[in-house]
């Protein structure tokens, strides 16, 4: 991420310090020359993964791919980073943190949510762009053993594009690879009578588009999360009616073909040491129980096309 590296001045200053630090010791008779690349080893990034890098992980091990979607400010990034934060507070029931290829990516996302957890207008950092990004976490549970999970961090812009363009929607092969699909609905937007109309429209249109394009495979577990449930709880009756209407319509659209569940959640609670556990454990149980890769071990490499880039990705044969 460009803005995660700090200002140019800070970066230059840091590089200067590191240059000095990493300079080989001068020991008189064995004086070393100036620092060059041969004296350093690159450790690789621990930031978010591009689709290509996520692919490398998929090629090397079984992974559950969880696509987390929703409109702007619905709390996708808070949800994803909150799961990681839950582990930073301690083990989650039967699950233990076993590693991550994207620690920097998680820490970057957690930062603002940690700073002020109960301010929905701030939340975590906003994701931009039409390319999916992934965060990786490895968990261990007994007796299952280790599970790798790739969580997508995709932008609200991507969902605007899904609603607007069938062609774009059809190009989203990352959706086809989704073992689990999470769609977050912004409870605060429902509670606000000036914004609530669009919430229903956006949710139903997005799902219709995804189904029409055939990128959301039948049988995929779909969890629709009514996020910021604390705000929703205090809202008027119209908001409650709208929630019911959204649930009914989505059940009609998805019900016969998908494993659909509705969940009320305040994803900021994942940043609360005392309240984080229950929801996070339930999600982990689901994600470590079902993956397409485990259901169909005869995998083939599919040539997928995403955002105009040709990539190799493990898919279901």
């Amino acid at each position, binding site marked *: 991420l460009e803005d*995660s590296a*700090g200002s140019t001045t800070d970066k230059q200053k*840091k*590089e200067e*310090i*590191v240059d000095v*630090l*990493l300079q*080989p*010791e001068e*020991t008189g008779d064995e004086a070393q020359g100036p620092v060059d690349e*041969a*004296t*350093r*080893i*690159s*450790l*690789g*990034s*621990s930031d978010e993964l591009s689709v290509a890098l996520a692919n490398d992980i998929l090629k090397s091990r079984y992974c559950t791919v969880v696509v987390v979607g929703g409109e702007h400010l619905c709390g996708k990034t808070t949800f994803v980073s909150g799961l990681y934060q839950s*582990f*930073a*507070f*301690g*083990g989650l029931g039967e699950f*233990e*943190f*076993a*590693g*991550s290829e994207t*620690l*920097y990516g998680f*820490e*970057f996302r957690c*930062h*603002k949510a*940690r*700073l*002020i*957890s*109960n*301010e929905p*207008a*701030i939340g975590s*950092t906003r994701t931009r762009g039409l390319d999916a990004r992934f965060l990786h976490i490895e968990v*261990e549970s007994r007796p299952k053993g*280790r599970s790798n999970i790739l969580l997508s961090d995709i932008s609200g812009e991507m969902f605007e594009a899904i609603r607007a363009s069938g062609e774009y929607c059809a190009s989203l092969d990352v959706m086809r690879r989704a073992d689990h699909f999470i769609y977050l609905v912004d409870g605060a937007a429902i509670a606000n009578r000036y914004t609530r109309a669009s919430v229903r429209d956006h949710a139903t249109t997005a799902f219709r588009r995804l189904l029409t394009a055939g990128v959301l495979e039948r049988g995929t577990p779909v969890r629709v999360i009514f996020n910021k449930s604390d705000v929703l709880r205090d809202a008027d009756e119209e908001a409650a009616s709208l929630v019911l209407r959204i649930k009914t319509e989505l059940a009609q659209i998805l019900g016969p073909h998908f494993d659909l569940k509705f969940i009320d959640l305040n994803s900021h609670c994942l*940043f*609360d*040491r*005392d309240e984080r556990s229950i929801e996070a454990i339930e999600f982990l149980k689901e994600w470590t129980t079902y993956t397409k890769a485990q259901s169909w071990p005869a995998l083939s490499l599919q040539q997928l096309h995403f955002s105009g880039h040709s990539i190799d990705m493990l898919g279901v044969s």
Partner: protein
Amino acid sequence: MRPDEAKHDLLVLGLPETGKTSFLAALSYVTRAGEVPTVMSLADYQPDEKYITEIKDDWMDFKVVPRHTDQLSAKPVVLSLKDAETAYELGFPDVSGEIVLYAWTTRQWPRFFEELVKQSSAAIVFVHSTSYEQGITIDPVTSKLVALTRKALATPVAEPKDFDPDKVPTQVRLVDLLQLIRRRQEARSAPTAILVSAWDLVIDARTPSAWLQEEMPLLYQYLQSGATKFPYKVFGISATGGDPVKDRERLSKLPNASSRINVWGASEHPSHDLSLPLTWLLKR
């Protein structure tokens, strides 16, 4: 090297000022002085002991043991120690904590450190018991009050501070570091000793392992989940027995200098034997 001798390169890691050099000074003293029972003792002197002599002298004289800047590179301090069965030649690279510090932000480390990682047969990771970055934590009560106050006063929401990678929790840096190291040690199951330094400052009755579980849960889970392949053990150590300046009077009244040292976690009771973590590592 004799047939009953074993050579081990130990990887000694920790952020700056976590007690690595004090440990080395106290270890070299206690294994030579014979003042308290120790599992390991001096087997032989090394031809060049300038550095170890300097830090040991500082330690004995209640001086704050400084990290000597001329030890920034790979040259390990070698100690020849023996137990009842075996003599060991142990290489302790006194690696600068800054290397660990900047590995997180710069995603690079020196080539000599890469070689150390690849050669090492065990790792010692230092964590300070009170001085570590916890990260910004959330106090639910305070944050709710802040939100309510803002609403009541209709004040604009202040933009939170930018993300500073240098301020991430210490446990995250250490998990990252251990991941990087263990990827390079896949072929062998190098054990890890976690040494929580300045343990005399931990005033409750927690065990070192319980301390790690509560204070650094992400690191604890990471170690625990990988324990089958990479065994680990947590020790609490006090290499100086207290603050060398403030506690000098009290420490000087102890029966001998070795009594300043304390190790917790090796057995039910604390011990003055600072070689116990090494014994555990070498017997894995």
